[in-house]
């Protein structure tokens, strides 16, 4: 029985935008000048300016990964993108200070009353700077740092500098290089040793300008024995021209720490969503990515965990929904670099209409290691015959004392099954929602309640839209 509240998210949420008075705008295109502009506005320290410029050089020298990835990437025109846009550099402190139009945006996003209360302890990014940032008093008292990335690097340079760019090197891939060159926004979080943060930390952010790429950069460090859950949700308005979103998220779980990073993304159909997410798990630490991708033109995202210490654990739970004309290219990367490390990957994809899902998995267990385990399950659901799905599992297990288990399945919801459900009085959209929700149900239950409700609602909306 469900007693969950109804979120009433409006279908039209992806189709609006408000005029924003952009105080700081780097203009269109990307060059050293753009970077100088960003550094000047953000008052970046010199090492960051150098870091950004070095990243730009790498970005320019690296080819597009179209040798293995979608050729649609070639349609991104980097010189037509606006790389920096700010609503003012200082994050706003209290709800009263939040501009009316930003509040209106939250309203349109359908964030329920219940969650608005939550916003008191939320880092909400509006365009590239945090428009609203207020750490819940309780969290602050525990010594937790929860600020925007800019504030993090200004006020906590000793922790920031130690880990920034260490989990995901600038040149990891072309898009991590791009992000490193122009990043702004995102969160910086530090959890002191032994602190278990009770409330999930949340961030809402969205794209709100044509041709404006959003390049947030998040760094979370959980010190020894600490625990934290971070939730990220996005929704973007629809525009005629393509929008680029390319985030980098780095997680560091020190000995015995636990980090859960939860994402629910509902991008409009013109967004390129190219994200690099990776965590470094030290001894007995645990990193879990729960990732749900709905919408976008092309999503490429393969959250990873490097299990660096003995008995570290990594997990990726992902749901991808590729609607008509969309391509979800998602997966997971598990690098076992110590004995007795275990990883688990559960991936479910849904392809609708001409939508396409690709799963890419990478599991590495070195020859010299003992007692490592990986479990990979990847299931695809195809709704109607045009849909396609591809699975590219790359599992490299060396060494006899390690175990790997891989299961994959493809199921189809045929016209015949939809007809059967319709014969019971259920509309086509509701029938598809039922099937999809049934398919992802076991994973959805791992999301915190308000997210699982939102997710279910998003799936319903997606199905309504696909029936047209």
């Amino acid at each position, binding site marked *: *029985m*469900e007693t969950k509240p109804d979120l009433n998210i409006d279908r039209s949420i992806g189709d609006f935008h408000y005029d924003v008075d952009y105080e700081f705008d780097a203009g269109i295109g990307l060059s050293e000048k753009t970077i100088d502009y960003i550094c000047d506005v953000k008052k970046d320290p010199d090492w960051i300016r150098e870091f950004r410029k070095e990243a730009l050089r790498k970005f320019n020298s690296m080819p597009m990964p179209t040798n293995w990835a979608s050729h649609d990437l070639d349609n991104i025109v980097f010189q037509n993108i606006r790389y920096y846009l700010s609503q003012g550099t200082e994050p706003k402190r209290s709800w009263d200070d939040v501009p009316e139009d930003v509040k209106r945006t939250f309203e349109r996003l359908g964030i329920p009353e219940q969650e608005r209360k939550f916003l008191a302890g939320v880092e909400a990014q509006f365009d590239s700077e945090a428009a609203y940032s207020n750490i819940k008093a309780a969290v602050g008292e525990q010594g937790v740092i929860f600020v925007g990335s800019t504030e993090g690097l200004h006020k906590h340079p000793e922790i920031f500098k130690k880990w920034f760019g260490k989990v995901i090197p600038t040149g990891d891939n072309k898009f991590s290089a791009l992000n490193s060159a122009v990043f702004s926004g995102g969160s910086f979080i530090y959890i002191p040793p032994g602190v278990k943060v009770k409330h999930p930390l949340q961030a809402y952010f969205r794209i709100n300008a044509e041709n404006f790429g959003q390049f947030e950069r998040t760094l979370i460090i959980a010190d020894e024995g600490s625990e934290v859950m971070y939730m990220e949700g996005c929704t973007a308005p629809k525009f005629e021209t393509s929008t680029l979103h390319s985030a980098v998220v780095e997680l560091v779980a020190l000995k015995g720490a636990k980090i859960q990073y939860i994402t629910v993304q509902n991008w409009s159909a013109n967004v390129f969503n190219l994200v690099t997410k990776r965590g470094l798990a030290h001894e007995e630490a645990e990193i879990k990515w729960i990732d749900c991708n709905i919408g976008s033109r092309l999503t490429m995202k393969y959250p990873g965990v490097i299990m660096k210490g003995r008995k570290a654990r990594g997990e990726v739970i992902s749901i991808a929904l590729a609607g008509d004309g969309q391509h979800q290219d998602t997966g997971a990367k598990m690098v076992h670099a110590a004995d007795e490390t275990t990883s688990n990957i559960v991936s479910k994809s849904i392809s609708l209409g001409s939508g396409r899902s690709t799963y890419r998995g990478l599991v590495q267990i070195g020859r010299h290691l003992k007692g490592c385990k990986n479990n990979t399950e990847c299931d695809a659901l195809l709704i109607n015959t045009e849909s396609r799905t591809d699975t590219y599992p790359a599992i490299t297990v060396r060494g006899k004392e390690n175990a790997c288990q891989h299961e994959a399945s493809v*199921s189809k919801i045929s*016209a*015949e*099954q939809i*007809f*059967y*459900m*319709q*014969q*019971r*009085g*259920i*509309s*086509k959209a*509701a*029938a598809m929602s*039922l*099937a999809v*929700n*049934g*398919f992802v*149900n076991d994973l959805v239950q791992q999301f915190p309640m308000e997210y699982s409700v939102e997710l279910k609602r998003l799936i319903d909306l997606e199905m309504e839209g696909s029936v047209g």
Partner: protein
Amino acid sequence: MSLKIENLHANIGDREILKGLNLEIPKGEVHAIMGKNGSGKSTLAKVMAGHPDYEVSIGQVLLDGLNLFEMEEPDQRARTGLFVAFQYPMEVPGVTIANFIRAALQARLPEGEELDAVEYYHHLYEKMDMLKIDRKFTSRAVNEGFSGGEKKRCEILQMAMLNPVYAVLDETDSGLDIDALRIVSEGVNAMRGPERGLLVITHYQRLLDYIVPDVVHVMVDGRIVMSGDKTLAHKLEAEGYDWVEKEILQQA
């Protein structure tokens, strides 16, 4: 008030399967259709329900005067009061019986109204008990891994829950064991009444021993060629279909 099928022609691809079928089931009556394999019995049920593979070229089906073919989507026809217990029920992976029937009932409520969950489960368990279906089935995916007989029982459970005005039962008896046949028949009989019309498709008299029909029709090659009372079924059981075909030829 009736379910009235008039001069129905339907084809799949360019093959005509229903070739001018006429049949009327007045509300309150139970009719049976018998006929050889491939004569078009299941096709009739699916065409009425709006299966996307079939195309209706001529004819209409009136449900209490409402033209079913004016309703584009199968779910509209279902909500108007038509139910089909299928010969081969589909498996719906991932969707539990409880959620499935609940969604079907919810779809019949006006916008904004929520089905009362407690009442729903009460009602569901009552019907399951009547059909002797283990309550554990509520959390199993619809028809997935069900035995042949379990599927048929589950179709009748859905019918009992959805309370249609007219129901077509397509070979509900096939696959049922002796006890199940009796239990399911009792369930169907409990739904007989002045407010409902039933069309039972079967090959065997033994079902009609339990669900005694008011009228029996014989279907040959996409048409109803003969109708009679329950004794017609006995004659068919005893003598097969050859004499029917001869009789038609003589008439022609």
